[in-house]
């Protein structure tokens, strides 16, 4: 030992060793507690996300129910029905009418593209997006139409091969996070014939640059076809987009042509392939499998018939009666469909697709319904083994779940999850990753995390950020169920003391909110506990309330409207087929009645009408529903800002 020793003299003695031990011990304890808090925050985000997905599926049930009972729509607007049940695509004439009339003004400073596209187009676009420019609707539409034509030629599954000089890069969910995609391109190079990529779905929603990501991916696909594989994810679905932000992003960036863009996108999404197979050994699909997944069948279904995975399929015989009004999968009586039953997928085919887009792997053997999300299933290692053997495959790569390290291997190495949106829930919540597959199936994993600063902040700062963010959205959930929670607490509070035990409180919270969270550990953030360990349950609601748009409105009503904000917004958008932003009082009234009936709410009609009128909305008998819904938001008393608007989409 001698060379390279520093000039620092360390006194080695029993005393120093003990001191070092103390500091190390303390630090490790502190660090562990930070990591745990981080993990709790992620659990909160994830539970709420999945609960929302369940809500989304419940909403699609409501659509069926609504169409059966909502007489006005059927008479006035048969196109609405077709829109929801997926028919009538735009043909070539539609394209001319759509795009041909758009002119790009001289004042447009965004990127200008030449057709046919070349690799320079891709560079020009990427540079422009880095400067936060918006691509003109004309180019967007041209690219979308081209993409649709090209995708129609693709089979349901992309097939791609590695070779000694080409590694294939596989990316997972991007969810509109452009910085992550750009980071991947910086580290790993742009797509090209020499640098093939597979993008495994969920390109859109939640992040702010979904349309830009789509443009980059679609242009790359048009340029490098066989070497740029795109798989459909569960978010490539217009109903999901209405709830999770993509629809809003398009309409706000493209105020004039946004609706046309969304319409063409619906079809492009439906034409996206369902998966990719590398070297006949590695299967890449967005969600997972179920015990009944039939790869053969999936190779042959007409995938473009599935506009939204969330809309139930039509029965083969469209004249089936509707005694079973609330059953999924039956068309409302008397609704005229354009086209014949063969224009739709069968129920079995539909289930096959929902399974591969929505399922999650778990350690428990067997296959059982995915109760968190409400769609697809949980599949165990035995299901994986059986499936891979049957189809002579070695590995399943999927995405769909956010992982703290960006990727996760499970089922004995047979299933890998790859997730490419770092900081998905919040700054510091998780890393992103991508996988490179080389010749002879060897795999390399790469991780990254986008950060605004030049270096990552200290751990405790990052943990504080995501923890407070998670607690905040949890509190918003709590306040939206205040009435039911109080009811549950009071049932357990025999002595009417205002206090219940920790166990009782945790039970109520879990039951009413339907979230499987570590309530005892979280209690210190949510309620006050006395020295006997009992919970003063009303303190749950102390520093947060829903802003009442009208003083006299009843709290329970406000709470309900707040809780169902997202659903109502989607429903209104769907009903509003002329996209005027307005619906009549009559429509609002009938829709509200149906909503209450289906969701089992006990709110008097008159209360809602009164509220709508009181809010001084357009006095001409129509309601600007976006304004109506914006009026319900949560105030966090402890905020520095006076008002804080919550964004649920």
């Amino acid at each position, binding site marked *: 030992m001698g060379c390279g020793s520093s000039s620092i003299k360390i006194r080695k003695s029993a005393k120093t060793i003990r001191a070092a031990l103390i500091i*190390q011990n303390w630090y490790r304890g*502190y660090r562990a507690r930070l990591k745990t808090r981080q993990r709790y925050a992620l659990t909160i985000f994830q539970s709420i996300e999945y609960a929302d997905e369940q809500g989304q599926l419940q909403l699609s049930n409501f659509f069926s129910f609504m169409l059966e009972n909502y007489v006005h729509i059927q008479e006035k607007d048969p196109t609405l029905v077709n829109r929801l049940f997926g028919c009538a695509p735009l043909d070539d004439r539609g394209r001319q009418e759509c795009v041909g009339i758009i002119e790009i003004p001289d004042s447009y400073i965004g990127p200008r593209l030449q057709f046919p596209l070349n690799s320079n187009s891709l560079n020009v676009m990427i540079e422009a997006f880095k400067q936060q420019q918006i691509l003109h609707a004309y180019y967007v539409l041209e690219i979308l139409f081209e993409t649709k034509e090209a995708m129609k030629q693709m089979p349901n599954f992309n097939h791609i091969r590695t070779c000694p000089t080409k590694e294939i890069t596989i990316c997972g969910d991007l969810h509109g996070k452009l910085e992550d995609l750009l980071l991947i391109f910086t580290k790993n190079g742009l797509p090209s014939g020499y640098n093939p990529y597979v993008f495994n779905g969920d390109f859109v929603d939640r992040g702010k640059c979904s349309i830009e990501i789509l443009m980059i991916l679609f242009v790359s696909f048009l340029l490098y076809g066989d070497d740029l594989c795109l798989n459909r994810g569960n978010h490539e679905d217009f109903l999901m987009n209405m709830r999770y932000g993509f629809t809003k992003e398009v309409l706000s960036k493209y105020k004039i042509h946004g609706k046309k863009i969304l319409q063409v996108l619906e079809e492009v999404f439906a034409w996206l392939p369902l998966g990719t197979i590398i070297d006949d050994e590695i299967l890449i699909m967005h969600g997972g499998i179920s015990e009944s997944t039939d790869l053969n069948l999936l190779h042959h279904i007409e995938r473009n018939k599935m506009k939204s995975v969330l809309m139930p399929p039509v029965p083969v015989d469209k004249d089936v009666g509707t005694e079973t009004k609330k059953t999924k999968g039956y068309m409302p009586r008397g609704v005229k469909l354009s086209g014949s039953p063969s224009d739709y997928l069968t129920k079995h085919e539909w289930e096959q697709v929902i399974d591969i887009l929505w399922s999650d792997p778990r350690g428990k053997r067997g296959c059982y319904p995915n109760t968190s999300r409400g769609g697809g299933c949980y599949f165990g290692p035995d299901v994986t083994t059986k499936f891979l053997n049957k189809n002579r495959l070695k590995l399943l790569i999927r995405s769909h779940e956010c992982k703290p390290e960006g990727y996760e291997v499970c089922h004995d190495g047979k299933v890998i999850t790859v997730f490419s949106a770092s900081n998905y829930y919040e700054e510091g919540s998780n890393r992103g990753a991508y996988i490179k597959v080389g010749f002879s199936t060897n795999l390399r994993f790469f991780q990254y995390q986008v950060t605004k600063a030049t270096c990552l902040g200290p751990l405790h700062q990052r943990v504080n950020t995501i923890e407070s963010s998670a607690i905040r959205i949890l509190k918003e959930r709590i306040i939206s169920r205040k009435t039911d929670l109080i009811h549950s607490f009071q049932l357990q509070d025999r002595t009417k003391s205002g206090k219940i035990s920790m166990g009782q409180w945790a039970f109520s919270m879990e039951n009413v909110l339907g979230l499987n969270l*570590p309530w005892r550990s979280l209690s210190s953030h949510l309620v006050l506990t006395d020295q006997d360990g009992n919970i003063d349950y009303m303190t749950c609601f102390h520093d947060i309330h829903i802003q009442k748009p009208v003083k006299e409105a009843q709290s329970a009503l406000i709470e309900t409207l707040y809780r169902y904000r997202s659903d109502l917004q989607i429903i209104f958008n769907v009903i509003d087929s002329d996209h005027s932003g307005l619906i009549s009082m009559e429509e609002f009234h009938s829709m509200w009645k149906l909503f209450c009936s289906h969701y089992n709410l006990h709110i008097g009609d008159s209360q809602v009408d009164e509220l709508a009128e009181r809010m001084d909305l357009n006095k001409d008998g129509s309601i600007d529903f976006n304004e109506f819904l914006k009026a319900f938001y949560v105030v966090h008393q402890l905020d520095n800002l006076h008002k804080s608007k919550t964004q649920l989409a």
Partner: protein
Amino acid sequence: MADEKEKETSELLVADMQRKIKEAFEVFDHELNNTVDVREIGTIIRSLGCCPNEGELHDLLAEVEEEEPTGYIRFEKFLPVMTNILLERRYRPIPEEVLLRAFEVLDPTKRGYLSKEELIKYMTEEGEPFSQEEMEEMLSAAIGPESNFIHYRDYITMMVIDEN
């Protein structure tokens, strides 16, 4: 009878304690099959407020592992061991003053700070040495990117406030 009531209370306490252990365990149970990766056990135990050192942790692992270690720890084996630890109040956390005095031992001339190199040397070469990741994390919290000194009194105070 007072005895019975006491017994009931302590049973309730144990039950509550065990539910808390379960919660801490479940958060790391990714596969939802009542097992966690053995590498997370240290984090779980520490998250419940205990501070075993690495050597003690190693011994604990031996108690909860399977006879033929699988890389996973089952909840059924973990629960009784952890319950005892909490009931016996083992591995109590280090009081602030003890921590401060430890820093002072490493700073015998009482400057009030340690240099970055000194801290790194002590933490990575003495006692139960830090991994590179642990060292980097501690440094990022203790000093700014430009500075080279850790003013340990302030550091400790900041950490303690953060924990509470």
